[in-house]
């Protein structure tokens, strides 16, 4: 009972699984979501922002890359990085592709990023438009600004003049001439001889044409002393950037604007009220905008000489490694391949190296992760591409070495790296049936868990292995024999036809028979000792034979006529002569009775028979 129940349950389970299969199959076409968002809807001018477009769903791999929205009116495009993550749950693959577009805001005001449209298999997916506000200045200094003193307004101009000598911002670079994608380290330093309470960056430089990486700012900027023109300044590094120029040519890095809150030293006042307000605890504070110098950078194109074919823009110094989590697997068991590129340089925008997987492998798009360290004057780190690969077939499989070409900045030459080849021993799966490859149709899934039918046990009829039966002599015999039979039947039929329709033919065919019959009679007369009757019968036989053969009435025939007729038929003289001789003997012996012994008669009989046979042959 329970056994039966469990069997039924199993059936039901299979049915449910199949139903699920059909449903998900039907849903698959709609199983795609496209969304877009920005990292911040309020950004300041010249600040970078990121527009992310996410395509989710099992069909995401087939989806083309969404087109960039046209936002040139307020932002400049810097670059795109793509990442993919793949999840496989119960052979259902879900993929999400993330496109991160980097822009820099170039125009203040309220703007809208239009909807991004994506067409997949004739179906158009669309994201919502995004409203975004670009503001002129960044957030105010962290401390609440002190209200400017009412009386100080008149003097601000003078004081600014003075301040430019004691408070200024400098942008410094480590080099002015770089290769494309070689980082320029830009450091912004505030030089001050007065005390600065606070500062805030009010306008970021426009960095169109650069990929920028900012070094993390210390909680408290490092401050040190430096003497310039005999005057001691306090120097504070407020911002440090690594800029990767994206195209060759002369580039200008626009100035950075910083707003500082400066505390001016106490000074004498004409007014007692003024002095009362000004001479608070710290003296007067003034807000001052300072601008850095612009920087010109010459970006050299990478040399064409010795450029490897597979060079894809990596500049710096790198190393590459590839490891798999296991080298001995069963067929259909997933293997993870980690391809890791580490080093210093433009790691973030490295494209994924091409890997030649054996054709038997099912390969999913890699999960990309990066770990960037911004330390000292270098942007270093590593980027890992994690592939899920499923060997579908047993055998030893080799993943060929993965190559990476890069431009080495220290030696100013191209270098080529490659990993070791990876060998994976794939053994047969335990169960051939669970190993149904992806993409099997529903009909095939029905077979999962079924077994082959049992062997045949009844004793078979064994046949000799030989050439195909239709090439044997017996088969050809069967084909040919009826042809002969038909030919024979046809001849016989024609013979019958001739007999019934042609008297001459019939008589001629009968001649032999008749002659033999008469000769037979003659022989019986011979035995009974009647020589006359004997000769009479032989004569009849001879004459009858001629008559039958030539279709003439034998009764009217005389020997002379026989001779002429036979001559006319062109029969050899000797045969005719023999025949006539026999006839004459008969005529003579019939009418001139003479005693003759049996031996003589028998000799004549033989002679006559021979004459008939010879004539029969001749006619």
């Amino acid at each position, binding site marked *: 009972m329970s056994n039966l129940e469990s069997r039924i349950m199993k059936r039901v389970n299979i049915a449910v699984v199949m139903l699920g299969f059909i449903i998900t199959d039907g849903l698959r076409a709609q199983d795609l979501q496209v969304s877009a968002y920005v990292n911040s809807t309020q950004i300041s001018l010249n600040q970078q922002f990121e527009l992310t477009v996410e395509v989710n769903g099992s069909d995401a791999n087939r989806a083309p890359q969404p087109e960039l929205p046209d936002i040139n009116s307020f932002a400049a495009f810097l670059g795109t990085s793509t990442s993919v993550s793949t999840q496989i749950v119960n052979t259902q693959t879900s993929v999400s592709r993330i496109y991160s577009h980097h822009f820099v805001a170039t125009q203040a005001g309220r703007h809208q990023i239009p909807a991004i449209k994506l067409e997949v298999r004739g179906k158009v997916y669309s994201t919502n438009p995004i409203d975004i506000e670009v503001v002129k200045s960044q957030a105010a200094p962290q401390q609440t600004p002190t209200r400017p003193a009412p009386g100080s307004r008149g003097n601000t101009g003078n004081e600014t003049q003075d301040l430019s000598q004691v408070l200024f911002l400098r942008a410094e670079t480590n080099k002015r001439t770089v290769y494309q994608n070689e980082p320029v380290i830009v450091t912004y330093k505030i030089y001050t001889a007065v005390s600065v309470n606070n500062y805030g960056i009010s306008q970021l430089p426009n960095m169109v044409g650069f990929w920028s990486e900012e070094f993390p700012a210390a909680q408290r900027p490092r401050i040190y002393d430096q003497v310039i023109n005999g005057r001691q300044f306090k120097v504070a590094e407020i911002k440090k950037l690594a800029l990767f120029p994206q195209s060759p040519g002369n580039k200008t890095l626009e100035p950075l604007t910083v707003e500082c809150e400066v505390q001016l030293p106490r000074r004498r006042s004409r007014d007692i009220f003024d002095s009362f307000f000004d001479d608070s605890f710290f003296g007067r504070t003034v807000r001052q905008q300072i601008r850095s110098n612009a920087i010109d950078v010459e970006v050299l194109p990478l040399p064409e000489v010795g450029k490897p074919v597979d060079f894809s823009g990596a500049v710096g110094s790198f190393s590459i490694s590839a490891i798999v989590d296991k080298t001995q697997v069963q067929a259909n068991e997933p293997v993870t391949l980690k391809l890791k590129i580490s080093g210093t340089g433009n790691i973030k925008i490295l494209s994924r190296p091409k890997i030649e997987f054996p054709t038997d492998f099912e390969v999913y798009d890699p999960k990309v992760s990066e770990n960037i360290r911004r330390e000292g004057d270098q942007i270093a780190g590593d980027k890992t591409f994690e592939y899920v690969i499923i060997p579908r077939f047993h055998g030893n499989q080799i993943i060929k070495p993965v190559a990476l070409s890069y431009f080495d900045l220290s030696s100013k030459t191209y270098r080529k790296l490659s990993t070791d080849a990876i060998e994976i021993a794939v053994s047969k799966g335990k169960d051939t049936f669970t190993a149904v490859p992806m993409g099997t149709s529903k009909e*095939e899934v029905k077979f999962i868990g079924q077994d*082959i*039918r049992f062997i045949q046990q009844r004793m078979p009829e064994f046949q*000799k292995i030989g050439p195909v039966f*239709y090439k044997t002599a017996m088969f050809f015999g069967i084909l040919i024999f*009826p042809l002969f039979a038909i030919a024979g039947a046809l001849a016989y039929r024609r013979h019958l036809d001739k007999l019934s329709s042609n008297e001459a033919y019939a008589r001629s065919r009968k001649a032999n028979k008749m002659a033999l019959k008469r000769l037979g009679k003659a022989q019986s007369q011979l035995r009974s000792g009647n020589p006359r009757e004997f000769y009479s019968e032989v004569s009849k036989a001879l004459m009858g034979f001629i008559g039958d053969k030539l279709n003439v009435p034998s009764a009217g025939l005389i020997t002379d006529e026989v001779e002429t007729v036979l001559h006319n038929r062109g029969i050899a003289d000797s045969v005719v002569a023999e025949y006539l001789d026999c006839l004459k003997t008969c005529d003579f012996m019939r009418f001139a009775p003479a005693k003759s012994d049996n031996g003589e008669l028998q000799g004549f009989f033989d002679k006559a028979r021979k004459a008939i046979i010879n004539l029969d042959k001749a006619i």
Partner: protein
Amino acid sequence: MKMTKMMGGVYLLLLCCTLGSATADEIETLYMRANEHYQKSDYNSAITEYQKILNLGYESWEVYYNLGNCYYKNSDIAHAILNYERARKLEPKNEDINFNLELANLSVVDRIPQLPQFLLYAWISALASLISLQGLGIFAAGFYVLFSVTLILRMLLRSGRFARMANATTVLVAAGLVVFSGLFLIRVYENESIIEAIVVANKVDVASAPAGAGTELFTLHEGVKLQIQDRSGSWLKIRLADGKLGWLLDDAIERI
């Protein structure tokens, strides 16, 4: 002298007869032993026993079918398919063969879609493969002989009841002869022109030209059925069911 020769001939004849009956017994015991091995899941021994029958020069679809089962249980899909196909050639419409063959084909890695055939030809070909080649041959030859007999009767019997009967049967038999000999000729043509084989190597690369001169076009795995079209040295020109052509080494495949 003459006598001894005759005696020798008789002895030889006797020897032949006894040998014949001995092999028949031998084959039957081999077959039974093989089946027992199979039931004890000793597939390798079963394979050797079945193979011995074939080596003695005897075959039957059951032997191929059982061999296919052994290979299947041994997870040797290529040889399983090969033997099921051989069995099917002798017994085209057997349900067991077709069921197991279909099941074995599920384990083949490569999915090769069938090219659509010209419809009328497909129907006729399907009709022709309803009966085994030998069966068709017997039918066609039988109708041929029958037709000859009626033709002869027609010639010899001019009139009367029998003559009229012979006339009627000649027409019927002629129709049967046309149908069966037509189907038989189609099957003979297929049998002679289409040489099919199964990939027995784990994996074989198919190139665009023989003798390693061409580029690698695609890779086939064990169990794939293909047609042999041409030969050049030890390289064979093959055609897949989906119409793809290429060259491969002949040791990678085995003829059905």
